[in-house]
């Protein structure tokens, strides 16, 4: 295909890519292909729900600052989860993110005939299960490292390896960061505010 004809959407399937890139202070790379970035609401929620979720505040701010290109996908799975959680604050749903991603793939991401969806994930086993055989031509799972490799080959970043190294380093430093809990609470509040009108 002539690359001038290329059209695509990027769907972030799980929290892994967001957390990895946020920890490396490299969320901006998600915008380098210059295509819309879709994130299921439950994935955004999960990226900020734990105090150990590195980069949670960066993720919340980044989504808010790039609302023209970064678009949460509303899912019934997340709405149902919130309804249950309102009556039982201890309620947890084990496969919430996966359910929301599945719903987003099947119903939340309409594609035109020549359009492809890049499913960005840290868990390609799950992605391959979620993609039906008849959809394999248009739904393309890509691991975070491979996404970065694509950017590296396009000359847009210096090194995919370096991003992973930065993420790992940030993780080690974060354990000594006393501000992490406060950051986490701010991030959660921001994401809840972002998602609330759509529930």
């Amino acid at each position, binding site marked *: 295909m002539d*690359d*001038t004809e*290329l059209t*695509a959407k990027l769907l972030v399937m*799980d*929290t*892994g890519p967001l*957390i*990895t890139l946020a*920890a490396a202070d490299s969320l901006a790379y998600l915008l*380098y*292909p*210059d*295509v819309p970035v879709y994130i299921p609401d439950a994935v955004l929620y*999960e*990226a900020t729900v*734990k105090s*150990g*979720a*590195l980069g949670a505040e960066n993720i919340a701010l980044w989504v808010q600052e790039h609302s023209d290109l970064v678009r949460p996908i509303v899912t019934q799975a997340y709405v149902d989860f919130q309804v249950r959680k309102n009556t039982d604050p201890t309620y947890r749903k*084990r496969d919430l*993110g996966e359910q929301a991603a599945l719903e987003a793939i099947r119903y939340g991401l309409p594609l035109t005939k020549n359009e*492809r969806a*890049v499913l960005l994930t*840290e*868990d*390609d*086993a799950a992605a391959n299960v979620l993609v039906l055989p008849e959809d394999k031509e248009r739904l*393309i*799972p*890509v*691991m975070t*490292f*491979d*996404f970065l*490799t*694509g*950017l590296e*080959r*396009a*000359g*847009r970043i210096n090194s995919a390896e370096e991003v*992973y*190294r930065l*993420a*790992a380093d940030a*993780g*080690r430093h*974060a*354990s000594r960061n006393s501000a992490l809990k406060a950051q986490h609470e701010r991030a959660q509040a921001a994401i809840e505010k972002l998602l609330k009108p759509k529930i």
Partner: protein
Amino acid sequence: MTEIEERQVVEAYSHGDISRAELGRRVGQDIDFADALLMLRRYHLPLPHRPSNPQSQGVELIRQLASRNARHG
């Protein structure tokens, strides 16, 4: 599970030999990505690179999109 055993399991995850779901099964709890990152941090291990496929259609698609944007931008 002893700390040595846990380290071995986390090393296997870091090397890409086992998935995050398998990591969770072996340590006996649900492990989301943030948990996995914290476990890697505990043992000073890098993030896993596998399974990945640098020759995949997706890598080429990202390269083309990002190249086009660089030319037009």
